[in-house]
């Protein structure tokens, strides 16, 4: 892929969690970092996340989860992403993610795990360094 083309990020709010302040702040930080960001809004099912990533030709699939359902959601999402041929894209997740769950999230294929308190520039730099 040409390095001149902006990095395309699909940022989704999985499940029923309505806390989107953090997601929207990260969207703005990514826009300022020069990424092309598609934000899905709330209440995304795993199928909808995959459909958005395919439609938008995402390089990066990012989730923001604040209400604790990250493991069941990501467990359902992983095979769907792989079946859609999105296994080679960069998957990241941020939000209220207890430390005890980080290894499980990485094992599910989420290369970047950003706990509350992560710096915005750290998220953007990680994407730049790990883009597919």
């Amino acid at each position, binding site marked *: 892929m040409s390095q001149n083309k902006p990095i395309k990020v699909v940022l989704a709010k999985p499940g029923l969690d309505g806390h*989107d302040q953090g997601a929207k*702040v990260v969207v703005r930080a990514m826009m300022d970092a020069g990424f092309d960001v598609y934000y899905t809004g709330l209440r995304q099912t795993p199928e909808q996340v995959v459909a958005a990533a395919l439609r938008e030709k995402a390089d990066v699939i990012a989730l923001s989860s604040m209400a604790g359902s990250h493991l069941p959601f990501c467990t359902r999402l992983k095979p769907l992403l792989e079946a859609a041929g999105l296994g080679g894209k960069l998957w990241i997740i941020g939000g209220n993610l207890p430390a005890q769950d980080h290894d499980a999230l990485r094992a599910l294929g989420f290369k970047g795990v950003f*706990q509350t308190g992560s710096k915005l520039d750290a998220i953007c730099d990680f994407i730049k360094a790990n883009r597919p």
Partner: protein
Amino acid sequence: MKRDDELRPVRNESGIEIQPLYSAADVEASGGIAMLGEPGEYPFTRGIHPLMYRKQPFTMRQYTGFGNAADTNQRFKFLIENGQTGLNVAFDLPTQCGIDSDDPQAEGEIGRVGMAVDTLRDFEVAFAGIDLDKITVSLTINGAAAILIAMYLAMAEKRGFDLKRLRGTAQNDILKEFVGRGTWVFPVQPSIRLVGDTIEYCAEHAPKYSPVSVCGYHIRESGATPTQEMAWGFCIARAYADEVIKRGVPVDEFAGRLSYNFNIFGNIFEQVAKFRAGRGLWAKIMKEEYGATRPGSMWLRMIAGGGGGGLTLEQPENNIVRGAYYALIAALSGAQTMALCCYDEAYTIPSEYAQRISLRTMQMLVEEMGLAETVDPLGGSFYVETLTNQMRAEMERVIAETDAAGGIVKLVAEGAIQSRVSAQAYRMQRAIESGAFPKVGVNRYRNDGEAANKVEMHPYRIDDARAQMASLQQVRVERDAVAVARALARVEADARSGVNLMPAIVDAVKAYASVGEITQRMVGVFGRYVEPLRFDHRDEVELAA
């Protein structure tokens, strides 16, 4: 006073410049004491009652609920045994979004962030053994509020409580859900209609029940300043009042049961001034704009609590101290009800241990610290009175600006408020990361080398979710299917015809129709809300640097 030129200017979060010293001249220059009055008298700046906490201390109402109704009932009883004087029910996300526990969308979410409720049966279990005349119950429910209010009234009636005397509160503030929190279901207009239906219905059938608690709280959590929090809260309350008044209900018949929910994190003096200013301004709005004549219609009755936005993941035990300062703010502000986010809440659903610390924090203010002895103890401070005047003027400016731009309903429907607060939240996050906005333990005094104290994580029990689905199945088998079908058909017909939906919903919950079934019928008529996602607002204003 004249500022020493060597001092850096300091502004509070509402953008008001703070002086190193205040005198009587500052009070005078900011508008004097015309809006001060006496406690219990218009414009109620000093408090809505003459004796305030001297007569009745603030209600202590921690936000609680998880797992199924039986788990939650147990925690309710723990809190009551420990001296809590009200309940504030947390519902799980499927319930809040109008989805049944056996819906595929509920997978992984049942009972996770609150109690799962599918049918009236769950309410019967959750409140078993609790005297609803002694303990007032607040339901934190919005998108599905009409259904859950109906369920609460049906449950209370079934247990023999007199609805004419039943007290309690539902959050039921859908406009703020579109700005922050996000448990909406229907589009903006039918959502406002439903709020109007609940207010109108309760005014007639449960006149002591507060069907709405307008929340500046979550707008603040989403990025609003303290003055925007209150000003937009008032704009939202006016939108609901307008909806009810256009149906021919006189303002004095319902305004006395409108209540508020505001946030308490931030600068102590700015917060206290916010509440004092807001009390006077709301009274003025109700009296001058709406022609209310009963004092109760002009009262800013509120829960002041939470403070989640001010708490930190870093050094979580510091949140115990922050909580104590926030509680002090609420008590100095004359709140009717108080709740505190717990120190572990940045991590998990609070433990009983953490809940008890929050409860004891509030009890100490009343029992040890003298906060219940004297009304409006900061009244007369040159600083607080000046700031109260300045904050009120700023709120009036925000309301005028909002009205001039087409009003709060239009701005929320277009996503303009959402875009603006997220721009402000972004600016604040950058300011915290750069250290321009100080947070102890976060951008100064970090203990990076030290292992953090362990927080006990609330377990998520998958068995509870399975039990909830089984119990819903059981209710579906046992209930009268014909009665349910008839009641649901009426919900749909009344949604379509435009009459007040509450009688139909009350019938449906009494027939044990589920939250999801009732919601689906309404979605069939109203459709679903679609978020207007915008990021076009930018916010370049410098914070207190």
